[in-house]
């Protein structure tokens, strides 16, 4: 196949992935809907009342949602690879490709971490977020497949960006968990959980899950920043120059470091830790969106 054919294949694969993501999202929504419809309010002998769900019917839809998400991931991943083949390089040379690759990392890390952690309740959020990212990438950010500018021709592009993309995927998952924590914390302060939220783990479990995700990926993020510094040394003559992108990567790093310290040492659990985690994750997103699109500095490869 020629470069152009590969580029077209990439586009079609991504469209197909979007269709399957949509089906996955609908299945996940159906799971929640069946739970809510079938919920019964039981009054326990102690007088506490709250809805209970019978998940035998909804369970199947939850599994289907995961199966569809896995299929969508494969299509999405193939689309990203095809894009790389069409351009003869790694598929992250501009904002369109950062978005398609970044969102495949989110799905990939979600499916991977699903094996060890109770994350299935996040399917709806993850598929929705990935759909929005892919949709905006295709409509707003699309640029034709092209070779790299000379500054990006380096092995470090592969190492630095892939580490950053994977870290980002996990950061966003941690953000979703922290957000769910804060929301459910408010809901629970008013009364028992409503039916739709019953399959989400307890607040305590969410808090621990968030910590585990961040602790798991923080060394990788550190590595990504250091790999970037090594690359900057060979490309720009300094390993650190407070370029806007570097500054925000530093802010993200410091914020997550503070989160880990707060959680491990001073025992900041729960609400305050969740806020800190959200803050750190937002600085990552800000770096991705604002600095890439509107920012100045040396990291301007968005192609926009």
């Amino acid at each position, binding site marked *: 196949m020629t470069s152009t054919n590969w580029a077209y294949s990439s586009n079609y694969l991504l469209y197909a992935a979007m269709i399957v993501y949509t089906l996955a999202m609908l299945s996940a929504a159906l799971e929640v809907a069946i739970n809510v419809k079938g919920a019964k309010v039981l009054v326990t002998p102690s007088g506490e009342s709250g809805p209970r769900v019978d998940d035998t019917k909804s369970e199947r839809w939850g599994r289907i949602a995961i199966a569809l998400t896995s299929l969508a991931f494969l299509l999405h991943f193939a689309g990203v690879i095809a894009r790389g083949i069409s351009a003869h390089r790694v598929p992250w040379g501009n904002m369109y490709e950062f978005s398609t690759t970044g969102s495949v990392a989110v799905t990939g890390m979600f499916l991977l971490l699903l094996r060890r952690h109770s994350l299935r309740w996040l399917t709806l959020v993850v598929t929705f977020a990935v759909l929005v990212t892919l949709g905006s990438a295709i409509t707003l950010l699309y640029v034709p497949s092209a070779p*790299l500018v000379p500054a990006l021709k380096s092995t470090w592009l592969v190492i630095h960006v892939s580490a950053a993309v994977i870290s980002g995927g996990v950061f966003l998952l941690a953000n979703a968990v922290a957000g769910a924590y804060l929301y459910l914390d408010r809901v629970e302060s008013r009364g028992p959980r409503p039916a739709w939220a019953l399959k989400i783990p307890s607040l305590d479990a969410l808090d621990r899950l968030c910590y585990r995700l961040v602790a798991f990926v923080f060394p990788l993020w550190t590595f990504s920043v250091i790999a970037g510094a090594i690359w900057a040394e*060979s490309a720009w003559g300094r390993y650190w120059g407070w370029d806007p992108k570097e500054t925000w990567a530093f802010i993200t790093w410091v914020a997550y*470091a503070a989160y880990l*310290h707060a959680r*491990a040492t001073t025992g900041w659990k729960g609400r305050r830790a969740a806020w800190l985690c959200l803050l750190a994750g937002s*600085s990552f997103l800000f770096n991705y969106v604002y600095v890439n699109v509107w920012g*100045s500095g040396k990291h301007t490869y968005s192609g926009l």
Partner: protein
Amino acid sequence: MSEITPADLGGVGGLRWFWRQLTSMKTALILLMLLAVASIPGSLLPQRNQNPIAVNEYVLKNEGAAKWLERLSLFNVYGSPWFSAIYILLFISLIGCVIPRMLIHIRALSARPPKTPQNLDRLTFPRSAQSTVRPDEVLDRAQEWLKKHHFRWERESDSVSAEKGYLRESGNVLFHLSLILFLVAMGVAAGYGSKGETIVVEGDTFTNSATSYDNLTNGSKFDLRKLAPFTLKVDRFVPTYDLATGAPIDYKLYVTARESDGAPKRELIEVNHPLRFGSTNIYLQANGYSPVVTVKDGAGNIVMNGPVVFLPQDTNLTSTGAIKLPDATPTQLGFVGTFLPTATMDKVRGGFSTFPDAVEPRLLLSAWTGDLGLDKGMPQSIYRLDTTKMTRIGLKQLAVGESWTLPEGVGSITFQGWVRWVNLQVVRDPGKEVALVGSVFAILGLLATLFVKRRRLWVRARRDEDGATVLSIAGLTRQEYEGFEAEMNDFWNALTAKGEVR
């Protein structure tokens, strides 16, 4: 923390209170967050050390605000007193915290596991059973298992106490020490580093001495006479462009490098591959065109013959510059020039370039006579003509080889051709190896401190009144250790075989 306030204490006590506050975890966390917040303005406002031109433009546009921003060092955030104050306090806090921790940990490394507590039931995953095996046999098995799993253990009369995961605290200390290494690296760079830029035209030779640079900044402790002694001849600069889009694909710079006592060596410099001389690196930063011109004055003397560096204005390398001839007679001559590598003419935009490579090169000139203003001793940009005391005498477009005889008999100019120039950045940073070592330590330390779990295990086996062996185990960890229960089960299974336990 304690409830004592500094008012209750004397001078030394007050100092001690202050020190304790500074080195407390809470203060360190606040300083850490403060550092993050403090670095934000530098990413939103232009910074003088990164982009001085953008700072000047900003100052011109927002004069009132700029005065205050300047006072608050907001155009130089990362070198400002308040930013320095935060990170210096943070590092003092960090050192005050990590050094005592390190000393405690060094002592702990050679310490034996703590004595088995009287009551194992109060600890994590306690388990107890009667066994038919002798107590000694149980403890032997425990010892065997602990040895196999690299625990540190201590046999007591009726129990074994064990501990594992010291690497966690070692990693923690290593990580924080590595941050101090970063500070050292920054200090070395600030004291002994240097960074200079220079534009060199193809065919010219650059000699590494302070006077050869267009600008040069150096650390306070660095003697400029100690610049690495080398010369660099720029042989050829070869860019490759995408024919469809004009986007650059590749830049190759061929040079002949020569160290003071060595033979000349041909080298290739690319964007991601600087040329390295010890701790001095030479980077290819920017490039552009220099039209080559011959200028004769009114008397027929050649007053200029060679390349003039023009600065690129857009991605298609439309380049502008100035040619100044202060020695021309009867009057000083000046040209404002635009070099178009691939020229196109347009009624609205005038002349501009449509491709960065020199396919259809043209030189657009406007000629000026009068006073160039060079004699006043005021520094002037070599790329701009100060026309306040000059008059324009004509406009002309030249192709390669064409000449233009200026009106009023003041001389002539010939467009001979063009060469390329490159902007080289020469950087000396003897601290970067320290920073690299710091990074490796930081990552290793992080991995250890986040993934190694420190835990204690105990087993006790003694005979009860009936002569049966009662064995009990328990564990303790302060970390979130998901696999602890599985590990405890494994330990239990090693102590008890089928049929032995009741």
